[in-house]
């Protein structure tokens, strides 16, 4: 059944079970949030997504946990909503470093976006600030809990998506923090380094180590992971000719944005200095750089002479489960069609 409601004067239809926040997204109306995520269950922690529902006794309702109902009339802004939101953000900022320009999350930060939207202009609640050491025990990501806003996205991601629960809320009150069992460095926990939580963190509390070395990517390219046979969709982030990051492709039907540690973080080999850059020919036991013409002519002549002298079956091809379909097609066409042998195999068995 579909439900039709009005949000800020716009009429929108959604499926039964959708929340007011879902409906607003559908209608193209921005509601600030810090803890809501399409892939996670509603949590209702950040108190930012407040809306006013006509006829409801309560002056404000969190849109992320309020189901959309037929005929509902919703307003996403009112003097009291705006004021409450501003207070919420100011409270968050009271315990947040004020170094946006040098923060690794700069320009990707949801808190920046929300603060800009609600229009925070002063910070009235200056108070005690945390000073946790940065956890750099995992080589792929950093945990800087001074920037944590306790939205719980990482905890819920590890639990609901990764099905693991390596991290959770710990302690109470001002001391509340996200921690592993016994509050030890994350690398000593059950963490599988999938980076899913890092991807979801709205602020600079969890960020890829590579962000310390690179700024924002200049381009993104959709492709498929080169490791295992699951075939996850990846988005390669590049600057010039360097791959500086990877994220899961949210639109891919196989992984829906998820990746494992290899898919997300295992890209350094691409730009590794060991990459072969020129053809090599072995002369007197040592490799010497050669031109493509020299190398390919040599290979063509040697293979042709083996075929002539010993017959086609004295040559064999090992193709690759890492190469594309098109390349594998050509490789076996080369073996059969040019050399005349069925000696073609790859490591399917290994």
């Amino acid at each position, binding site marked *: 059944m579909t439900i039709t409601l009005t949000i800020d004067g716009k009429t929108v239809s959604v499926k039964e079970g959708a929340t007011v926040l879902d409906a607003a997204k559908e209608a193209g109306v921005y509601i600030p949030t810090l803890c809501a995520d399409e892939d996670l269950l509603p949590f209702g922690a950040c108190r930012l997504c407040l809306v006013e529902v006509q006829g409801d006794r309560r002056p404000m309702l969190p849109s992320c946990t309020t189901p959309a109902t037929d005929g509902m009339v919703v307003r996403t802004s009112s003097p009291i909503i705006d004021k409450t939101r501003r207070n919420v953000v100011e409270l968050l900022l009271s315990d947040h470093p004020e170094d946006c320009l040098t923060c690794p999350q700069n320009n990707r930060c949801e808190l920046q976006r929300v603060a800009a939207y609600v229009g925070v202009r002063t910070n009235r609640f200056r108070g005690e600030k945390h000073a946790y050491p940065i956890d750099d025990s995992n080589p792929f990501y950093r945990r800087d809990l001074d920037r944590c806003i306790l939205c719980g996205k990482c905890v819920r991601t590890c639990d609901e998506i990764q099905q693991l629960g390596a991290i959770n809320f710990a302690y109470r009150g001002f001391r509340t923090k996200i921690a592993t069992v016994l509050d030890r460095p994350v690398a000593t926990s059950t963490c599988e380094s999938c980076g899913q939580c890092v991807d979801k963190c709205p602020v600079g509390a969890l960020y890829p180590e590579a962000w310390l070395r690179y700024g924002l990517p200049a381009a993104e390219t959709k492709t498929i992971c080169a490791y295992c046979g699951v075939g996850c969709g990846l988005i390669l982030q590049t600057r010039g000719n360097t791959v500086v990051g990877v994220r899961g492709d949210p639109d891919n039907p196989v992984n829906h944005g998820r990746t494992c540690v290899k898919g997300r973080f295992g890209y350094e080999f691409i730009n590794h200095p060991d990459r*072969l850059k020129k053809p090599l020919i072995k002369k007197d036991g040592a490799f010497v750089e050669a031109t493509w013409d020299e190398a390919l002519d040599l290979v063509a002549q040697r293979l042709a002479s083996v075929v002539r002298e010993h017959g086609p079956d004295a040559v064999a091809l090992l193709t690759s489960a890492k190469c594309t379909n098109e390349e*594998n097609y050509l490789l076996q066409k080369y073996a059969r069609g040019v050399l005349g042998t069925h000696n073609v195999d790859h490591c399917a068995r*290994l």
Partner: protein
Amino acid sequence: MTNSIEDMKEAKAFLIIGSNTTEQHPIIGLNIRKAVREGARLIVVDPRSTDLARRADIHLSIDPGGNIALLNGLAHIILKEGWEDKEFIASRTEGFDEWRAVVEKYTPERVSEITGVPVERLYEAARLYATTKPAALVYAMGVTQHTSGHQGVQACANLQMLTGNMGIRGGGVNPLRGQNNVQGACDMGCLPDFFPGYQRVADDKAREKFAQAWGARFGDKPGLTIVEMLNAAEQGRLKALYVTGENPVMSDPDSQHVVHCLESLDFLVVQDIFLSETARLADVVLPAASFAEKAGTFTNTERRVQLIRPAIDPPGEARPDWEIVADLARRTLKALGHTPDGPYAGWDYTSPAQIMDEAAALTPIYGGIRHSRLENGGIQWPCPSPDHPGTPILHVGKFSRGLGKFNPVEYIPPAETPDDAYPLILTTGRRLEHYHTGTMTRRVAGLNKLAPEERVEINTEDAARLGIADGDWVVVESRRGRVKVRAAVGQRCKPGVVFMTFHFAEALGNVLTHTALDPVSKIPELKVAAVRVLRA
């Protein structure tokens, strides 16, 4: 896979055999973890206590090599208790009675004796599996890398037919393919007995079709498999080998033997992105582009053909493999003095999309695959025509061969069994952080930090008897070689079994493994080798 990754969500029960899914196929592993949390039942058959084994309702800790006995044993109990899907068997299958006669010999007592799994556990597993539907069977190399691997695969299919779990959502026989495009390499005919699309070399019509298309001449006998190529090289029958993007020195069993074979060749060409252990032995090395630097398609384990796109340029003068081989083909034809004549005899390609058009024209299961159709999420083959939407589940309503055939299969002991001199069984696999021979992952600093070195996993009981503590240096020896490595002592392996990977050149499991092959699939028995472990 007969079914889709997405479709696994519908399974009410899983039987995972010979697959450490969480580490080898992590995203499928996540889906299974989630399904189990939401109530699906889980049976894991594995000699190791893997992540999924620890989450399982029932973990059958099997001695490596006992898969067929175990699967036949489960079928035996299901039949005896009358839990089979009688209607499915009557309407969709054939060969049931012959098969039943074989299965009858696999009494729980005998199976327990072979597999080391207690009789009660076999009963529990059989009951749970047969009475929960739909049930998906998932397997990987732990089933296939045995001298009886192809029978193991048949035993899996038999169980799924017996329980009526074929051709339905949430069921099926689901082999998880290891490498990103191993499915595609098979589909494209990179097999000695098949042209693209599993058209048999032995079939006259298929040979005629390709000979005509490419203007080519070739024999009617299948070629050599990888292990056979190596042996032929040693015997001097194979003179030249052209290797693209493979590293047999590390990935194949008995690696010292592999080096010896490759050194016996007159001419070795290796095309790769790095100077791998195999490339070092080559006469000519050709620099290839990585996946991030080229276009084309990969086919995943659920037969989904997906587009890859270039994000950057290849380094230096490296070129995409398709360009290299096309260039080489033109030069080879010239050197041979051939000018083949046929509608697809040419080698002047301008793009991978154009190559796919040609492959599709000759490969019925890819008949409707075009790059232009793959922009949004890819297509699952069989896709016979440009307007066909693809096939998420195979064998719905009818098996592709008509009736599903029960193939009677017997337990065959592994080629090498433990004895007094080599009392432990070595089984091999991979770890989450590394990949295959490590050419890629060992060049990622963070992955090396997370998993810096090889460890041989050994059970606490065996370790205590041998006087080995966690982290001690030990020597693992088989009849083929010896490896020095640190021990990881614990409960991951069952007593009598040790585990190693093939990621680390300096401590390589494949120095120890056995080259015995399954006679049909030609897969080596990497999952069972007799070894001894000594303090270093």
